C-alpha cells in the first residue's frame, strides 16, 4: 500500500477530535491519534519537499526506520533540524510538544493521560496540519 500521509493526517486528526469531545474515557485514544496525525502531517511536508521519498511500491526509501524514530517526539525534533533546508518548509514551534508522548503508550492502560496533555497535543497536531495545508 502506498502511504497517503496527507489524507491520513486529516483522518487521524478528525477521529482524535471526535474522541476528545465525546467522553473523558476516550482521552487516551484521542491523544494517541493526535500524535499520529502530527507524524503524518510532518511526513507529508517532507514528502512534498522532496525530503521523504517513497519507492515505487510505496515504502519509504530509508529501510531502517525503526524503534521510536519517525514517531513523536523524535519526528518533531527531526523536522526542526530540516527547517531551513529550503524556504518552503514551514516553521514550527521550537519546544517539542510531544515530550513524554510515547508510541508504545498504545499498550498502556491510559491512566496518565490528562485533559491538559491532550490539549497540548491537539494544538500541536493542528499546527502541523496547518503547516501541511499551507505549504
Amino acid at each position, binding site marked *: 500500500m502506498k502511504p497517503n500521509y496527507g489524507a491520513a493526517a486529516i483522518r487521524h486528526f478528525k477521529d482524535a477530535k471526535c474522541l476528545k469531545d465525546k467522553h473523558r474515557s476516550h482521552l487516551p485514544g484521542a491523544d494517541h491519534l493526535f500524535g499520529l496525525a502530527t507524524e503524518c502531517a510532518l*511526513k507529508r511536508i*517532507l*514528502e*512534498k*519537499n*522532496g*525530503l*521523504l*521519498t517513497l519507492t515505487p511500491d510505496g515504502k*519509504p526509501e*530509508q529501510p*531502517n*526506520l*525503526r*524503534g521510536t*524514530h*519517525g514517531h513523536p*517526539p*523524535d*519526528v*518533531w*525534533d*527531526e523536522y*526542526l*533540524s*530540516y*527547517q*531551513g*533546508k*529550503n*524556504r*518552503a518548509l514551514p*516553521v514550527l514551534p*521550537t*519546544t*517539542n510538544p510531544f*515530550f513524554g508522548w510515547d508510541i508504545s503508550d498504545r499498550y498502556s492502560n491510559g491512566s496518565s493521560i490528562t485533559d491538559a496533555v491532550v490539549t497540548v497535543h491537539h494544538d500541536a497536531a493542528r499546527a502541523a496540519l496547518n503547516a501541511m495545508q499551507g505549504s
Partner: protein
Amino acid sequence: MKKTIRFDQAFRQVLQVVIRWLNATANSGKVVLVRDLYGVFRIAFETQPEQEILEQLQAELSIEGGSYFPRTSRHFFFKDDLIAPEAIFDCLDAWTPPDGPDNFQVLDRHLTGREWLFPATKNTGITPPRAVFFGIKGGVGRTTALAMLAWHLSKLGKNVLVVDLDLESPGLGPSLLPSMKTSGDSRIAQGWPEFGVVDWFVEDAIDQADDDLIEDMLGSSKLASNGEIRIVPACGGLVDQDYLSKLSRVYMDLPKLGKDTEVFGDRLARMLDQLEEKTKPDVVLLDCRAGLHDISSAALTRLGAVNYLFAVDTDQTWDGYRHLFLHWRHQIERLDGIRQRLRMIGALTPANEIPSEYAKRFADHAHRVFLEIYDKPSGDSEEFNFSPNDERAPHYPTLISSHQAYLRFAPLEEAVQLDESRAREAFGGFFEMAVSDLFPEEEA
C-alpha cells in the same frame, strides 16, 4: 545571578565540547552538529555512540548550550533512523570548522541569506563576463556608475545587457528608460518592456518563463551608441500591475518531488542564462541591492561574476563588510574563488581630497577588514595575501569622484551627464579598470 547564555556564546561552547569529545574518541563515522532556525543544537551521528557517552554529552551540552540545548528536545539522531539523512549528511550548507576533525561538520540552517555560503552555480554554457554592482550601504552612486559604464561600453561597440536586481528599490529602469507614460489605449509605458525580473520569478514558478516572456522583458536604452544596451528592469512597464504581490513571491526555492529543491540562486542563474541566450551580449551588468540581502548573496556568490563592492570610507561601511567577511572566512575556500572576484570601488570620493592620499587611507581601512578573508602569511607562494598599499589587491580602491553634475542622475534628460570629459573626470579610472577587468584579452 548566572548570566543567560546567548546565541554566540552557546555556539562557541557547544562547538568546543563536541570537538573536544571527538578528538578524544575513536568515533570514526561522520558527525554533524546541526544548528536549527531557532539556534537550537542537535547532533547527527553516522555511527551510534554508547548510550553512556550520549548521556555524558547531553549533560555537558545542556550546561554549555543553555536554552540552545534544551532538556525538552531530542538532540541526538543516528543516520539510519533519519527520514532524510542526505539533508543532514550531504548538505551544501555544511562546513568543517578549522580546529575540528575531518569527520565533523557544522550545518547551520538559515531562514534567509543561506547562499552567502554557496559555491557558484554550474553553468551549462559559456557565459559572457558578468559584473555585479553591490554596496553594503545604499546611496553611494552604484546605479549611476553602472549606467555610466553601460554607456561607456556601448561607445566602445560592446553589446551590453543590464539587469536590475534591486527589486525592493528599482532604479535602473527609471534611469535608462524613458519616463513612464502611456499613449492612447496602451497599458504599457512607452519605450518600456511589458515585464521585469519579478515577472520571470512568478511565471517560472508555474513553468511559464518561456521565450515570449523573455522577449517581453527586454527594453532598449537610448543611452546606447555603437553597441546596444538591452535592459531588463525589475518592474515592467505594465501600468496596472501589482508589483508587491509579485515581489513577495520572488525569493522562493522550488521544491521538486523526488529531486533536489532548486534554490533561489539557481533560479536567478537560470534566468540570466535565458536572457544571455536570447540577447548574446558581450557583457552583463547586474545592479544588486544594497545591504546583506538574499538577492545580494545569490548574485555575489553564485553567478561567477566579478563583484564591484561600493564603499565610502566610514566606520559603518567597514563594519558592514566585516560582518560579511567574518561569515565567509572559514568557508572561503569553497566559494569558488570569490576572493579573486572582489573589487573595491571607492565611491563618492570628496572633491577636496587628493585622490592618491585618499586611496591610501581608504586602502588601509579596507585592508583591516579584508584580513578576515586573506590567508595568514605562511611563506607559501600560493597564499592569497596583500599588503595594504598593494594596488593589485582586491581591497585597493578604484575611485569614483563625487561630482555635482551626477547628484541627480537622469542622463536622458540632462545631456551634460553624458559629456565625455565630465564623465571621464568622475568615472575615468573606473571605466579603465572595468574594461581591463571584463575584457582582459583585448587589453593585452
